[in-house]
C-alpha cells in the first residue's frame, strides 16, 4: 500500500505540483525555467521507463538463468532430449533429480507455431487482400470490426474453447478416420491459435498492402492485367518485405502465446512431429514450473527463467528483424 502511494505521488503528484508551481510563479521567469527543466526531466524519466523495463527483464531472467546453468549445464539444457523437471521438493524426499533437456519443448513450440501459421498466414493474407483490393465500403465496415472482435477476445477464452470444443472434435474426427489422437493434441491448440493470430496478420498486411502506391496498380491494370494478376504479380511482390515483417511478428506472438497452449496442449514432453499427439511448449512449462508451491532456489523454478531467457531472446530477434524490415519498407515508399 505504501509502495502504491509513493508511486502515485511520484507519477501523478509530481507533474501536477510542478505545473501548479509554474502557474503560481509565472511572473518569475528564471524560476519558471528551472521548473520547466525539472518537468522535462520527469518526462524523460517516464520515457526511459521502457528501457528500464527491458533491462529489468533481461537482468532478472539472465541472473536466474545463470543460477540455473550452475546446476544444469547449458549444453544439457539446450540439446538434451529428456524433459522431466520433477525433482524432490524436500531434502529428505526420495525422488528423481530431474532432467532438463529442453529439445522436446522447442520441438513442441515449433510444431504448434507451424500449425498456427499454416492457418493464420493464408487466411489472414487472403482476408487482407480482399479487404484492401476488392471489398467495398460496406463490406469493410462490417468485416473490419469483426476481425477486431476476434483480435480482442482474451486468450484464456480461446484456450477454453480449444480445450473443450476443438480438442474433442479433433479427437473424434481422427478416430473416425481410424487414427488415434490425444484430446490435448497439438493440432487443436495450433488451429485455435491460428485463428487467434489471423486478425493480427490480416490487419498488419492490410496496412502494408494499402501502402503500395496506387500508380503501380494503375500501370499493371493499364497493361491489361486482371485485378488478381495485378495483385499477384505487382502488389504482393512490392509488399513482400512488409508482409514478411508482419508474418515474423505473428510468429513471435505464436511462440510467446501462453494460455491457449496451457489449456489445450498438455504437459507431456513428447518429442514428436505428429500433430495428433500431445506436445508441450516453452510457455506451458514456464507456467507449470512456477504455479504451485515452490522453493525459489530449486532447479525446477530456476528452469522457468532459463526457458524465459530463451523465449525472450528468440522473440526479441524476431521482433527486431520484423521492425527493421517494416521500417526499411516504409522508407522505400515514402
Amino acid at each position, binding site marked *: 500500500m505504501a509502495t502504491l502511494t509513493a508511486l502515485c505521488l511520484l507519477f501523478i503528484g509530481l507533474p501536477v505540483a510542478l505545473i501548479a508551481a509554474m502557474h503560481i510563479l509565472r511572473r518569475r521567469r528564471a524560476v519558471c525555467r528551472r521548473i520547466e527543466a525539472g518537468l522535462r526531466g520527469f518526462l524523460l524519466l517516464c520515457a526511459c521507463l521502457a528501457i528500464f523495463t527491458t533491462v529489468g527483464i533481461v537482468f532478472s531472467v539472465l541472473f536466474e538463468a545463470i543460477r540455473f546453468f550452475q546446476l544444469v549445464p547449458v549444453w544439457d539444457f539446450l540439446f538434451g532430449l529428456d524433459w522431466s523437471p520433477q525433482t524432490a521438493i524436500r531434502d529428505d524426499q526420495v525422488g528423481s533429480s530431474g532432467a532438463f533437456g529442453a529439445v522436446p519443448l522447442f520441438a513442441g513450440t515449433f510444431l504448434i507455431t507451424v500449425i498456427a501459421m499454416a492457418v493464420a498466414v493464408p487466411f489472414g493474407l487472403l482476408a487482407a487482400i480482399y479487404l484492401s483490393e476488392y471489398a467495398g465500403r460496406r463490406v469493410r465496415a462490417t468485416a473490419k470490426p469483426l476481425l477486431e472482435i*476476434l483480435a480482442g477476445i482474451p486468450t484464456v477464452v480461446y484456450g477454453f474453447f480449444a480445450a473443450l470444443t476443438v480438442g474433442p472434435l479433433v479427437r473424434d474426427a481422427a478416430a473416425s478416420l481410424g487414427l488415434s489422437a490425444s484430446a490435448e493434441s497439438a493440432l487443436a491448440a495450433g488451429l485455435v491459435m491460428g485463428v487467434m493470430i489471423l486478425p493480427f496478420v490480416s490487419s498488419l498486411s492490410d496496412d502494408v498492402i494499402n501502402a503500395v502506391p496506387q500508380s503501380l496498380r494503375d500501370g499493371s491494370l493499364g497493361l491489361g492485367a486482371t485485378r488478381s494478376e495485378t495483385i499477384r504479380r505487382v502488389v504482393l511482390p512490392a509488399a513482400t518485405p512488409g508482409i514478411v515483417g508482419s508474418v515474423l511478428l505473428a510468429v513471435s506472438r505464436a511462440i510467446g502465446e501462453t494460455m491457449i497452449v496451457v489449456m489445450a496442449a498438455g504437459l507431456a514432453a513428447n518429442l514428436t512431429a505428429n500433430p495428433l499427439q500431445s506436445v508441450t511448449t516453452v510457455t506451458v512449462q514456464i507456467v507449470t514450473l512456477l504455479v504451485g508451491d515452490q522453493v525459489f532456489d530449486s532447479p525446477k523454478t530456476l528452469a522457468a527463467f532459463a526457458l524465459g531467457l530463451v523465449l525472450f531472446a528468440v522473440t526479441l530477434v524476431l521482433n527486431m528483424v520484423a521492425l527493421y524490415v517494416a521500417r526499411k519498407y516504409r522508407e522505400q515508399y515514402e
Partner: protein
Amino acid sequence: MNKAAFAGNDSPESPVVRRLRAGIRARYRRERRFRRLGAASLVVGALFLLWLLGTSAFKAAGAFSQTCIAIDIALDAAEFDGDAPYQREAIAAAPYNRMIRAALRAAFPEVTARRDKRRLYQLISDGVQYHLRDRVLADPQLIGGTHRLWLLADDEVDLLIKGRIDRNLPQANRRLSDQSINWIDRLQADGRVERRFNRHFFTAGDSRDAEQAGILGAVMGSVFTLGVTMLLAVPVGIAAAVYLQEFAPRNRFIDLVEVNINNLAAVPSITFGLLGLALLINFFGMPRSVPLVGGMVLALMTLPTIIISSRAALAAVPPRIRQAALALGASRVQAVVHHVLPLALPGMLTGAIIGLAQALGETAPLLAIGMVAFIVDVPGAVTDPATALPVQIYLWADSPERAFVERTAAAIVVLLAALAAVNGLIAVLRNKVEKRW
C-alpha cells in the same frame, strides 16, 4: 478488350481468336476464384467467431439459474442459547446443520440406514447451513416456528434438474444413485424443486463446491488490479508520449527508446510475469498473489500500448496550435501543457482504455506472480490475496467437476460483456472526440 467485343464479331473464328478467347475466359475464371478465396477467408473468420461465441453462450446459459429445494425446517427455540430476544452470538452459534438434517429426515421418514441418510443429506449443498444462519440473523422472528425454506441444492442435483445427467446410464457411471434420483423426483412431484436465479454466482467468492462458487472475488480482484494498472500506466504513458512527441531531440538515445517501446509491445506477456516474480517479489520482497504486484506487472505490459496511442493523439494536433502559442510568447512547456495537451487528452484517454481492455483479458503474467491461488474471500484491498476474472476462468476450466463447465462459460460471458462495454466506450469516445482540423 472485353467479352462483348469478341461476341460482336460474327465472322467465322480463326483458331488464333479462339485461343485468345479461351485464354481470357480462363483468366477471368482465375480472377473470380481468387476473389472468392478472399471472401471465403473472411467468412471463415466470421464463422469461427460465431461458433466460439455461440458455444460459450450456450454452455453458459445453465449457470444463471440454480436448483433450490424447499424443506420444512423447524427452528426449535431449544436449539438457541438464551431467551428471546436472542443475542447475535446465540443465533450465530446455533447448530443449523443438525436442524437441516432433521428436516430432511422428517421429509423422508422411511430413510433409516446410515448410508442412506448420508446420501439424503448430500442432496443439499454444504453451504446451506451458513445461508440459513444469515437468514435467521437477518430475521430472528423465524426462531420457534417451522418454515418452508428454499435451500440450495447440490451441484449434481442441479445438473440432473437441468437435464445434464443421463438417467439411463448405469448407476455406477454417474454420481447420483437411483435412490437419490427417486427422492428428487418425489420432491419435484410435490412442487418442492425449483430453478431460481443464481444469485450466488454474482455475490460469492470462489468455492470448491460448484453450486456455491461465484465470481465476485475474481471481479473485485480484477477491479483492484486494473485500478493499480491505470494509476501507474496512464500518467507514465502520457508523460512518456509527451516527451517523445513534443520535446525529444533526434538522437541515437531517443531512437533506442523508441525501438525499445516498439519491441516491448511485442514481447510475450509471460515475460513480464517473470520480471514481476524475479524483481518485485523475489528482490523487493513484495507479497505473492496480490493485486498490487499484478497491477504493477500489467502496468509495465500496457505501457507501450498507451505510449503508442497517446503519441498518435498528440501527432493529430496540428502544428499551428503550437506555433500560435509560441508566437505569443509561451515557452515550449507552456505551449504543450496549456494548448496541445488539452486538445490531445480525449484521444489519449481512448489509448488508456485500449490498454485497460488489454490488461482486463490478460492471464499469463498473473499466473507467474501467483494470482492463481484458491481464494474464497472477496478481496477488500490491493494487498489482499486475489485472483482476476481471466485467471478464475483458467482455474475453473481446469476443475474436474462437470458443474464448473457452465460456470466457466458464464464467467467468460461476463468477461466478454465487460470487454464489449469497454470497447463500446472506446467507440463512443472516438466518435465524440474525432475532430477534423
